[in-house]
Every structure is written in structure tokens, then in C-alpha cells.
């Protein structure tokens, strides 16, 4: 047994291909047989991924021996590479149509998430400007939170909460998108770009759109990645400054 685990660990990436392949195939069978395609196979597979991550540690299931390769397959390098490749399916003219509105979405999405997030944190007892800004940053994405916290000098507890906020947001977006897509009118490239720009969370948006309609992924992912950039720019600077004026 020990010997087998060693082999699996040594060939981690290859084993990860096998594991993900099995998860995908089982999820698609469940989607077809049990839900009659109502819940997309991709959504089930992603939920299974989150579920098994709970049994691991800081790096999810990759903390368990034999599964270390999952961190490589699901790491930021492969994720970004695969996201960029989806741009192949995006057409330039569709993106140009969204134009100015797209930029407007980025700003408004960041500001709303920041202030709603910070205010809820404030009501729950995190009342200083640094914590407000950090938790508000986390409400943009789990990258913006720690970057804001680091920039304004928030405590590590608050930074940990801001990461958790971002992760919860991305999980919530992933799970809720396929159900809400129709109600929110996300069925064309323009609305997918608006969705990505406002909601942010690249992983949540792209996973959610993947289980809604794969064709929309590149449009949502494109604006979502700029959302993180926008958050990193304005949360620790202008927005923190505004909060600072009111709270200190």
C-alpha cells in the first residue's frame, strides 16, 4: 500500500488526470440519470470537488498523500492557462459591443461589494477602518482581500476572514449561477460580460458559467479577471481613504 501511494505521489499530475476523469464521468452519469440534465454535470463535478476538499487541509485534498498532484492540475498556472485558452471562442466584435458598460460594471461591482461587505463586517463587530476595508476587499475576491489587508496593515485574523469571505463568495457564485442565470438574463455574451464584471470572482464566475453555458465562459472570465485588478487598485487606495474619513 505504502509503495502504491509512493508511485501515485511521484506521478501526481497523471494521477490527478485519472481522479478528475473519474469525478467528471460519475458526475455526468448522475446528471443524466438522476436529474435528467436539470443540474449540469459540470456543476455536480465542481461541487464534488469542493466536497472532497473539505476532507483535506489548507490545500484541500492535495494535503492527503497520493493526491498532491491535484494541486498542480488545479493550481493557478494551469487554471490561468486553461482560462486564457477559452478566449479562442470569444469574438472581438461581441466584446466591443459591451465596451463602456463593461468598465462601468467593473467599478460599480467593486464599490458595491466593498461597501456591502464592509458594512456587514462593521455590524458584526469589525468596526475599524482597516478591518472594514479588508473585509470589503474580501467581498470583491479572495485575492483583493489579502492584498488590501496587507496594504493597510490589518490583523492576520481579519485577513483570514477576508480570504474566507472571498472563497464563500466564489463557492456561492459557482453553485447559484446555473440556477439564477435564466432569471438574471445571462444567456448572451453581453450579459455574461456584465455578470463577470460585477460579480468578479474569476473562479466562481467561470465555473458557474461553465455549468450554465460553456460558450459564455470566455466573456465572463475576461471581465472577471479585470474585476480583481480593479479591486486591487481601488480598495486599498480610494475606497480605504473614504472609509478612513468616516470611521477614524
Amino acid at each position, binding site marked *: 500500500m505504502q509503495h502504491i501511494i509512493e508511485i501515485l505521489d511521484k506521478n501526481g499530475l497523471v494521477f490527478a488526470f485519472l481522479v478528475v476523469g473519474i469525478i467528471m464521468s460519475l458526475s455526468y452519469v448522475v446528471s443524466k440519470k438522476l436529474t435528467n440534465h436539470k443540474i449540469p454535470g459540470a456543476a455536480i463535478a465542481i461541487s464534488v470537488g469542493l466536497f472532497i476538499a473539505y476532507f483535506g487541509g489548507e490545500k484541500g485534498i492535495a494535503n492527503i498523500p497520493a493526491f498532491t498532484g491535484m494541486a498542480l492540475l488545479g493550481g493557478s498556472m494551469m487554471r490561468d492557462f486553461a482560462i486564457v485558452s477559452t478566449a479562442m471562442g470569444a469574438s472581438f466584435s461581441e466584446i466591443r459591443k459591451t465596451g463602456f458598460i463593461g468598465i462601468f460594471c467593473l467599478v460599480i461591482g467593486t464599490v458595491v*461589494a466593498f461597501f456591502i461587505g464592509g458594512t456587514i463586517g462593521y455590524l458584526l463587530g469589525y468596526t475599524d477602518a482597516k478591518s472594514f476595508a479588508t473585509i470589503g476587499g474580501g467581498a470583491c475576491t479572495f485575492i483583493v482581500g489579502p492584498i488590501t489587508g496587507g496594504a493597510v496593515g490589518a490583523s492576520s485574523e481579519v485577513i483570514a476572514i477576508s480570504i*474566507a469571505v472571498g472563497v464563500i463568495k466564489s463557492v456561492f457564485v459557482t453553485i447559484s449561477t446555473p440556477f439564477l442565470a435564466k432569471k438574471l438574463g445571462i444567456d448572451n455574451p453581453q450579459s455574461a460580460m456584465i455578470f463577470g464584471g460585477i460579480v468578479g470572482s474569476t473562479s466562481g464566475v467561470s465555473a458557474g458559467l461553465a455549468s450554465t453555458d460553456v460558450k459564455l465562459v470566455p466573456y465572463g472570465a475576461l471581465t472577471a479577471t479585470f474585476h480583481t485588478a480593479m479591486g486591487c487598485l481601488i480598495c486599498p487606495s480610494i475606497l480605504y481613504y473614504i472609509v478612513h474619513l468616516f470611521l477614524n
Partner: protein
Amino acid sequence: MKIYGVAILAGCFLVGHIIGDQLGKLFHLNGNLGGVGFAMLGLIFMNDYFKRKNILKPETESGMLFWSTMYIPVVVAMSATQNVKAALSGGWVAVLVGIFATLACYALIPFIAKLSKNQSENKK
């Protein structure tokens, strides 16, 4: 050859990351500002250019398309390696902030989508 497609993809990816990284430095932030977004824009522009010149071979294209089909499996692996335990142990603050901030954003979407529709109709 398929590797040409993969190489184009890799080139766009790296250029995007370098731009994002430099932007981060410019604003004194320890991070990559929209590197993935710039990489995607680069690929979209190149793709557009190749198609107009009609020099993109299907074989080259399939090298890129392979990776876009690997996208969902990669996302599954990514969700399996998240710190889900910590997200849940962040307690109610994290859960409440995460969910309500997202719902507030959702509420804006139909409104802005309408705005965008009006704008594009005006253009016509």
C-alpha cells in the same frame, strides 16, 4: 502541428502575465493586475488577425482548443484543492458577508443589462 497552437497560447499567457506584473509594480502592489485578462485580449486579437489573413490552420487551432476543453476538469481540480475547511471555520461573518455581498451584486445585473441593451439599440 498542434504544438504551434499550444505555443501561441503560451506566448499570449506569458506576455499577459508580464504586463499584469509590471502594472502591479507600477502601482506598488504585490500582485498581478489583470494578467489573465491581458493574455485573453492578446489571444483574441491574434485570433482575429489570423482569421482575417486566413493563415490559421485547423491543426494549429486544435492545439488551443484542446486546452479550452480541459477547462472544466482544471476547475474541478481547483475546487478540490480549496481551503474549504477554513472558509467554513471563518464563521458567520465570512458566510454572511460572502453571500450578501454577492446577492447585492446579482441585484444590479438585470438593471445594467437593460442599460447596455438600450445603449446598443441607440447605436443602431
